[in-house]
């Protein structure tokens, strides 16, 4: 594996030898980092064209997103739904599926959790919380799993199906919240009945963010182990790289596709559960907050690596946390942050084509020089 290990006859390593061992490994970090910086530079040009100061912009992003305990609270409070929604994109992506309808699973997961919450009001609250989370995950999993099943059994394009099913999910949620599950006391904002206080999820100790952040971290680590360290994950990666080869090898491709999409959907449903149990206290139209769509961005920027999702989600949450301050201080519209994210997103996607093409990341480049 390492070049360093294969040179016992020399007393000291030359810089070239160290670099030839190091650079191939650094590729996965340096390329996205360079792309990120290029994105920052491109957006600076955009700001200059508008007659605004890029320095002020980045200073405000830093101030609002990362500079103080309050900034971190602001950033972290957005992280949980982003991480869980990103998993709903990343897991199917490892099988080569582009699922972009996580929003639907979040909304339905929230609805299922809220309705379960009213049903379990008489049970011990710990049990009730578990049942709520499971209900959210089950419905979310069913929703996105169905998209996987449509793909593998009927050849329906999963991207289109998931996007359209998100609209159906939102319409269903509105129907149930305004109809059968409406709390009669919610006059001007139709909602399900408010959760009992014991069923609400609070903040974590020392961190001003709810337990959903912890759940997101655990989910990412588990997904990484599943993909990188289990035979199931290995089979999924093979199927993702070459589905025909996987089928010829006798891998259970259909079950893998349905399983991974369902698991992704379950995490999105869990995001919906946390939105209801930690933030809103009931299900209503406020659940439709677009986290499912930002999750797509996070997953792609993280190149569908569950561990990379965490820092990327924190970065994007920090960007979004600064949106308000940028509106107020720089007199720029709220879409500024979206333009910024879009530019960074495109440049990072472009940088994907560079993998394996830059000679500085090959051991040979450094050994020759």
């Amino acid at each position, binding site marked *: 594996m390492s070049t360093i290990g294969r040179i016992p006859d020399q007393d000291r390593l030359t810089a070239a030898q160290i670099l030839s061992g190091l650079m191939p490994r650094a590729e996965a970090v340096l390329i996205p980092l360079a792309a990120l910086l290029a994105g920052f530079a491109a957006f600076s040009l955009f700001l200059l064209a508008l007659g605004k100061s890029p320095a002020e912009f980045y200073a405000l992003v830093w101030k609002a997103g990362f500079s103080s*305990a309050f900034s971190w609270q602001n950033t972290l409070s957005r992280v949980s739904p982003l991480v869980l929604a990103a998993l709903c994109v990343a897991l199917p992506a490892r099988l080569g599926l582009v699922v972009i309808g996580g929003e639907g699973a979040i909304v339905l997961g929230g609805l299922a959790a809220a309705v379960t919450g009213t049903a379990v009001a008489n049970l011990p609250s710990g049990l009730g919380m578990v049942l709520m989370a499971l209900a959210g995950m089950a419905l979310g999993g069913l929703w996105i799993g169905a998209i996987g099943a449509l793909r593998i059994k009927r050849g329906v394009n999963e991207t289109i199906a998931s996007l359209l099913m998100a609209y159906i999910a939102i319409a269903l949620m509105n129907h149930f919240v305004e109809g059968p599950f409406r709390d009669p006391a919610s006059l*001007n*904002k139709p909602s399900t009945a408010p959760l009992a206080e014991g069923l609400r999820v609070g903040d974590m100790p020392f961190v001003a963010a709810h337990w959903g952040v912890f759940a997101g971290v655990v989910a990412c680590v588990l997904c990484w182990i599943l993909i990188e360290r289990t035979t199931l994950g290995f089979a999924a990666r093979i199927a993702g790289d070459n589905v025909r080869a996987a089928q010829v090898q006798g891998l259970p491709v259909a079950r893998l596709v349905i399983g991974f999409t369902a698991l992704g959907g379950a995490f999105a449903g869990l995001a919906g559960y946390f*939105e209801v149990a930690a933030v809103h206290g009931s299900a209503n139209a406020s659940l439709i*907050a677009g986290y499912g769509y930002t999750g797509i961005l996070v997953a792609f920027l993280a190149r569908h690596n569950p561990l990379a999702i965490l820092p990327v989600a924190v970065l994007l949450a920090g960007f979004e946390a600064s949106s*308000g301050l940028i*509106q107020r201080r720089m007199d720029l*519209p709220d879409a500024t942050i979206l333009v910024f994210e879009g530019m960074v997103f495109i440049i990072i996607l472009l940088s994907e084509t560079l993998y394996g093409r830059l000679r500085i990341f090959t051991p040979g480049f450094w050994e020759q020089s």
Partner: protein
Amino acid sequence: MTTLKRLNRRHFLGTSATALGAAALAGLARPAIAAEDLTVGFIYVGPKDDFGYNQSHAEGAAAVKEMAGVTVLEEENVPESMDVQNTMESMINFDGATLLFPTSFGYWNPHILELAPKYTDVRFEHCGGMWAEGDPANAGSYFGYIGMGQYLNGIAAGHATKSKKIGFVAAKPIPQVLNNINSFLLGARAVDPEIICQVIFTGEWSLAVKEAEATNALADQGCDVITCHVDGPKVVCETAVARGAYVCGYHADQSPLAGDLYLTGAEWNWASVYTDMVAKTLAGEPIPNFVRGGLADGFIKMSPLGPAVSDAGRAQFEAARAEIMAGGFAVLKGPLMDNRGNVIAADGEAFAETDVKLESMDYLVDGVLGSTS
């Protein structure tokens, strides 16, 4: 968090006092404007130039900006999620805001209720009229009786319609919206009891495509005056005008969009409400936790009547407005049935604009074509 909270006005006063002392030593002392400064934050759920709900609040914010000693912060397109809590805290912690106007209905529960106990020296003023005994003392809620404005719209519509059929594009069948629809029809029926009103619900507060479809459908069915209750009436307005229908406005003044086809409009008068609340705060007077008002109290106003309103229409409109301004006027009064044949008000029974029964309205009155479910 406690240390951060000190970054507000009180802390600012402390540091600016020191700074002033230093400046005075240097012989550069200026009047302590900063010490009087009040920072006020306005938060909108949609764009502040939507010709509708958000614009009406932004117009109020613009009036506050004109006041001396006040700094105004604004943020638009803030969803009713954790985002609004973050925005409020950001305004408090970064900009030292001590008076906040989070203007969307859904900002109240859970968001304001969560933050108000945490920032007890900040005043939260919410639009929607939700405050009740037991809610945080540093939070308040206000709202206006805009149904009266839709009643006056109805009078203008009643004089303009030739088909005797008027239309209403509505977001959701909730009490506030139903009250507007009913008031609009009853205003028209005060002109001609034969008039009917077709309503179409879009199901969302802001969904341009459905709003355009609904407006076109109303025009297809022969409605020749159209009004609405959605967040931004721009699409309804422009579509109705393209179909040659008269328009009655809502939320803000849409006459720039509708031209000569604009009859009048029921507008919020937040400029009057907000300047009053800010003046009270500057003077150190308390703002009541629960404030409501109508036309007479300066909470709502009517757009100037358009050229299409006849002299007879003008006369009846002004007479009704005077009656409402005098107080105690009831739009809903017996004998009145809903459109399913149930009795809403017996003969002699009347619901004034302040009647709490109107706040749980779940019916459309006789003469409205449409269903609440």
